[in-house]
């Protein structure tokens, strides 16, 4: 017998969106996210204020970095979430292009929406996109330049890339200065690409031009009282050990005595124990001792007697990095001095930055290590400057690994778009429509750049397209003048890896979202009423 009630498969509160509705909701979500970050694109892109709610309510962040913005907003829409994740991966992978990748994916979906309105099946669109991606990649590879054979030219390339990346950030005014700084820092790494050897310290006050690169390592700590403030040829022992007392860590352990003199003896014994420990440490033939934990007055004094600079309570990241750059290891026991690897550096001294005194380790054996000190007017500016510098460093490190470069300023996008268009014209079948859509989406990137700078995007982009069709493959947007210009002369260069990653991630993500035709939201887990006082 057939029941008249509709058959219910899902649980009571679960939701299901099907076909058109599902697609619509993913398009809307993805496009909204794309639009959110679109205005930050390009050298004249704008910044956003992020106001935190919830736990750290009232905290303000100002940023131009796509990944940071997207990470901060909480999205509910599944498609939007995919874009956010994608930009995060881009950030981890290559560090820059986080906005571009989101905008490109959103534009692709915007085009897809139009095609679907024309009753073209998603699978056909996807087939077209795949071909388009291959063509774009091939043309990008063809256009890429590899200068790694010529060190001088390569250095110039690196500077150009740094300048291009920084020009869209808060550091744009001082980009020359910071580009040099970032390149110098990355060149010091000698190809290892280990960014953890570059330390960034932020200090309020001064202006951005007061920022500098120090070829040593800076630690925000002070040596103990009456200990040497300056040590040459330092032999450094880095430790993580309690320097108050070696406690017995059994709960409830206590001593029972029947006389005060015995307590005094015990106290003395404890002191002797500490003295032994200090002697053991000093026996490592060191003159600098850095501990992760506190050093109490008594051991501090013993160190002072031995002429050892003892630094207490160094933070965790600090000592790990210090161990890395000085070539030492972090130890917790001191019984075998011969087995311990000490850190070395030429000079340990105090330096003053702004109002604070820091400890500088100069001439460290890991010649790659360096510290960038950023100064700025407000905390927000400092944070943003750090993010921008981080982006530049990431891109540079990626370029050192994969040395090919391409031209920026919308040049590569237009190149790819034109290549796809040419191929589309030769392709029979409905894929051609999808390929054209792909090229349109690519052209949206230079359009957004021009729009953000307040120029007439329609005019500029059509000029750009005409130039590329004529065979001028280095033409791009010159946003200083608001005209179309040669990117080679202007030195607007981007890393090939970043561009490739943008193209591939965006098309993959868009494809994934397009394939969706059903969204099922699981029923929320039941919770008991919250009776806690708030």
């Amino acid at each position, binding site marked *: 017998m057939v029941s008249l009630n509709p058959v219910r498969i899902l649980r009571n509160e679960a939701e299901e969106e099907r076909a058109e509705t599902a697609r619509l909701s993913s398009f*809307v979500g993805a*496009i*909204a*996210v794309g*639009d*959110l970050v679109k*205005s930050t694109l390009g050298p004249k892109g*704008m*910044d*956003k*204020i*992020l*106001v*935190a*709610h*919830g736990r750290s309510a009232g*905290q*303000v962040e*100002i940023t131009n970095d796509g990944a940071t913005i997207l990470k*901060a*907003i*909480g999205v*509910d*829409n599944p498609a939007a979430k995919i874009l956010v994740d994608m930009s995060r991966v881009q950030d981890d992978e290559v560090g820059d292009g986080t906005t571009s990748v989101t905008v490109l994916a959103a534009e692709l979906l*915007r085009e897809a929406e139009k095609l679907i309105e024309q009753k073209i099946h998603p699978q056909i669109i996807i087939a077209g996109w795949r071909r388009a991606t291959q063509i774009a990649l091939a043309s990008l590879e063809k256009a890429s330049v590899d200068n790694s054979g010529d060190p001088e030219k390569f250095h110039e390339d690196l500077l150009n890339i740094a300048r291009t990346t920084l020009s869209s950030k808060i550091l744009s005014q001082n980009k020359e200065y910071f580009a040099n700084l970032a390149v110098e820092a990355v060149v010091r790494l000698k190809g290892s690409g280990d960014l953890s050897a570059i330390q960034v310290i932020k200090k309020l*006050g*001064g202006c951005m031009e007061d920022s500098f690169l120090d070829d040593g390592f800076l630690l925000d700590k002070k040596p103990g*009282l*009456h200990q040497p403030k300056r040590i040459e040829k330092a032999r450094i022992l880095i430790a993580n050990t309690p320097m*108050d007392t070696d*406690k*017995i860590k059994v709960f409830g*352990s*206590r*001593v*029972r*005595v*029947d*006389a*005060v003199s015995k*307590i*005094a003896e*015990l*106290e003395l014994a*404890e002191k002797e124990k500490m003295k032994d420990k200090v002697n053991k440490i000093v026996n490592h033939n060191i003159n600098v001792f850095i501990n992760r934990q506190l050093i109490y*007055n*008594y051991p501090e*004094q013993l160190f*002072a007697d031995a002429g050892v600079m003892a630094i207490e309570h160094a933070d965790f990241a600090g000592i790990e990095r210090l161990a890395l750059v000085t070539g030492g290891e972090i130890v917790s026991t001191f019984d075998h001095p011969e087995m311990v690897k000490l850190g070395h550096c030429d000079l340990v001294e105090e330096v*003053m930055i*702004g*109002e604070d005194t820091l400890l500088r380790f100069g001439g460290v054996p890991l010649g790659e290590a360096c510290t960038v000190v950023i100064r*700025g*007017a*407000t*905390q*927000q*500016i400092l944070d943003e400057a750090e993010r921008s510098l981080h982006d530049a460093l990431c891109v540079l490190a990626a370029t050192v690994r994969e040395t090919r470069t391409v031209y920026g300023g919308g040049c590569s996008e237009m190149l790819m778009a034109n290549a796809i268009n040419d191929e589309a014209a030769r392709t029979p079948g409905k894929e051609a429509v999808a390929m054209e859509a792909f090229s349109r989406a690519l052209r949206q990137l230079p359009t957004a750049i021009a729009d953000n*700078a*307040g120029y007439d995007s329609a005019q500029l982009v059509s000029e750009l397209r005409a130039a590329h069709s004529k065979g001028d493959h280095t033409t791009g947007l010159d946003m200083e003048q608001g005209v179309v210009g040669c990117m080679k002369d202007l030195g607007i260069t981007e890393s090939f890896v970043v561009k490739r990653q943008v193209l591939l991630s965006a098309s993959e993500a868009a494809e994934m979202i397009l394939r969706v035709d059903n969204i099922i939201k699981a029923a929320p887990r039941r919770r008991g009423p919250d009776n806690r006082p708030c």
Partner: protein
Amino acid sequence: MVVNPASGDTRKMQSGAFKDKSKPKDIRSSNITAGKAVADAIRTSLGPRGMDKMIQSANGDVTITNDGATILKQMNVMHPAAKMLVELSRSQDIEAGDGTTSVVVIAGSLLEAAEKLLARGIHPSAISDAFQIAANKSVEILTKMSRRIELNDRESLVQSASTSLNSKVVSQHSSQLAPLAVDAILKVTDPAKDDNVDLKDIKVICQLGGTVDDTELVDGLVFTQRPAGANPPRKVEKAKIGLIQFCISPPKTDMDHNVIVSDYAAMDRVLKEERAYILNIVKQIKKAGCNVLLIQKSILRDAVSDLALHFLDKIKVMVIKDVEREDIEFVSKTLNCRPIASLDHFTAENLASADLVEEVSTGGTNKVVKVTGIQNQGKTVTVLVQGSNKLVLAEAERSLHDALCVIRCLVRNRALIAGGGAPETEVSLRLAQYAQTLTGVDSYCLRAYADALEVIPLTLAENAGLNSIATVTELRNRHAQGEQTAGINVRKGAVTNILEEEVVQPLLVSTSAINLATETVRSILKIDDIVNTMQ
């Protein structure tokens, strides 16, 4: 949650080249309004005739101050852009220490100028770039105006300190506080090689009672703690001072311990041993010849027990307890002695000597312990600030800090410029001239920037109750005729050569104010959206 109400519109607009930018515009104008509001709030406290603000905090505490950084810190603003201005003033406080009000007023005025430029349809990035050019040019002009000084030119230093103090509550004491600030800084610096001053070498101690007049510079140490004990020595000549970090109280292990007392005799023994233990320590102290004992505060146990105090009294040792751990470094630097962390190290060579340690009364019933005539004293100095009530005292301390910072600026960058609105007027004039040599948007923005800087003389005149328009135009006129040092003489209520009035300020204060204000305004201009986040 996707917060983007504009997303629907953008899709509609996509077809044409024209784009509606209503949301970014709204955000920008809201930011500018907030910034201007903050600047307006503290504008009236600028200058020698500036007014003070009374701030009542949530828990009922009242602060009266004229210091921009302090007002803003207490104001508890909500708007993100307004918060940036608060940070700006804090940053000026760190960098220069003075000019915290000016920097916000300049930023407010620049924002107002930017608003007008935006209304004319100039793109924010273009304005932002032009402002940076203007700032660089201004710094150049200021540097050209400035006059080099040497640190032995005491008179100039005192003048600049009193300029800073003149705008504070304590202005009537400026003739006393200014030389004091100069002496304090000069005492801790070596003019030949130092190009920075660590203000931590100058200890400012506040004591209620007396008046600001009684503020003094003590070449030595001052403790607000009374000597401990029932009948301690009040005055010790030829003092041998020991700075100890161990405790004079019954022993204690780091582990928990129990003393088990099984009978009456055992109890007696416990007491006796405790006595013997402390006596042993005291004997050691006596053997070393110590007669003044400074004891670090301990949270784990009594730093000094009553019994120990009793013994120490007997051997006529002055005991000052509860010296904070942070202060130990200062004290040991001043006395040029080592802090002693264990009894074994308590020997004669680890003691410091001073000519006199004395408990003196400072206005009213309050007493402090002064240590003077220290041998081999380190490069440190103590300032004892007094005031009749808590509010005045706090303000006096802040003002003194500003004055110290002004002198520190001069140590860092040894150049002076005239005060009284003269530099701002000059920069404004020269910048406007420079703008005429340019073409395009830059010229227009530089012009606006130049006009915006006139807010400083304008506010000075307004606050002094002068006719602001008449004064500023006269000032402009005099500068146009080449009188670089013409400024507003608040005392006479007229425009005069300000150098004759001895109103001078360090170059660093002005340049840093312009640089920081411009940097902040540029970053505010670049914002086009406020996004709420969940974290």
